């Protein structure tokens, strides 16, 4: 499936959109980590929590659980929110 990478993380991938495989969001992120080392820790902390400001969408709907099931043909969008003064 195709995964949209937010701009601040594109130095890892070099691409706006990359291919990854997995039956869950966690597996897709693990696959991305194999291809692009260091990328996952930027999004998921050591307690397996999504970092604040990192949002994950599947087919346009936001998901909050890394165990969320994925199917062939799904598209994943990773979006980084911004905040500050």
């Amino acid at each position, binding site marked *: 499936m195709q995964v949209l990478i937010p701009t*601040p*993380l594109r130095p890892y991938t070099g691409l706006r959109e990359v291919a990854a495989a997995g039956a869950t969001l966690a597996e897709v992120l693990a696959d991305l980590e194999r291809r692009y*080392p*260091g990328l996952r*820790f*930027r*999004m998921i*902390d*050591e*307690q*397996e*929590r999504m*970092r*604040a*400001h*990192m949002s994950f969408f599947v087919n346009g709907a936001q998901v909050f659980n890394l165990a969320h099931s994925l199917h062939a043909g799904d598209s994943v969008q990773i979006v*980084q*929110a*911004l905040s*500050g003064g």
Partner: protein
Amino acid sequence: MRPHFLGHIVHHLVLDARDRRTLLAAARTGHLGPPVFRSTGMGRSWQEAARPPAFDKAKAGEAGRAVDHTFWLTPAHANEPNVWYAGTSPQGLFRSEDGGITWHPFSSINDDPDFRRWMGTVQDGTPDGPKLHSISVDPRDPAHLYIAMSGSGVHETRDKGRTWAALLGGLEVVEGFNVADPAFHDPHCVRLCPSNPDRLYQQNHCGIYRLDRPGTTWVRIGQRMPKRVGDIGLPLVVHPRDAETAWVFPMDGYHGLTAHQPGGCARRLCHARQRPALAAAGRRLSRRPGVVDGEAPGARGRHPGPGRPLPRHHQRRAVGEPERGRTLALPGAAPARNLRGRGGRAVTQELRQGTQPCRC
């Protein structure tokens, strides 16, 4: 050379004096996790740590901690090449044995019930999160370390971190709190003197202190600071070759001062006008061998502003006091680096102890 880490907050940048080429940087964007970067080419290019400092995963049902940022980096003993220590926020201690590529947590602190209790108090109300900082390695013994925690006090290990002892004797805490409880101690910066590893200086939330080992009682030397300035501040710098001299940057926002020993006297020595907000941030510049470890915030000069007069002591030099903007070399020592303001203007100076009578 192009800018690196554009948009990042760089908490600490340290050159490894053992090989004089490895640089580690603790940087974060605030949104994308807390990496540590490594350069072996004097900063021309950087590689991200393969395993940055991160706490162990919590057991099921427990609330685990996640590193928000690495705040402090210290190379280990000269006999331990490639070993580094890191302090984080929330407070945690980490060690790398491969030059900063992978980092491993110290469970003796990070998971210890006493340390966790001390960390979890109202003293942890630092705006940017509580820090473990001021990691110092005894140059005579790689197993002997000091750490400071804001706030959980100053601690010492003599067995490379397996066991720890608090060093709280003589320190004060905010009135009304229990001085015997490490939770209420708030060291802002602790420095070990390279020329005398038995001497430590400390800038604490409650004053400036000195400790001479093997003693365990800190002496509040800041009480001799000018009363209009006080002895509350954040950074502290020790002289690389003269254990009698240290610099502090009080939070009154206009003074750079030296804390002089052994008479327990603190004396105004320079006119470093600094930005209080930057001083409060406690950010640090890289450490170079043989060079004063400058604190960036304290190094930045600023005029009080249009229409605001300089403090009286800035307007007239005292007899025997050097001009602002010059650095005086110590006899028998290489000149220390100036701490320069934005326009390249030197804003601090260095003098040999005892050349002037105390005016405190």
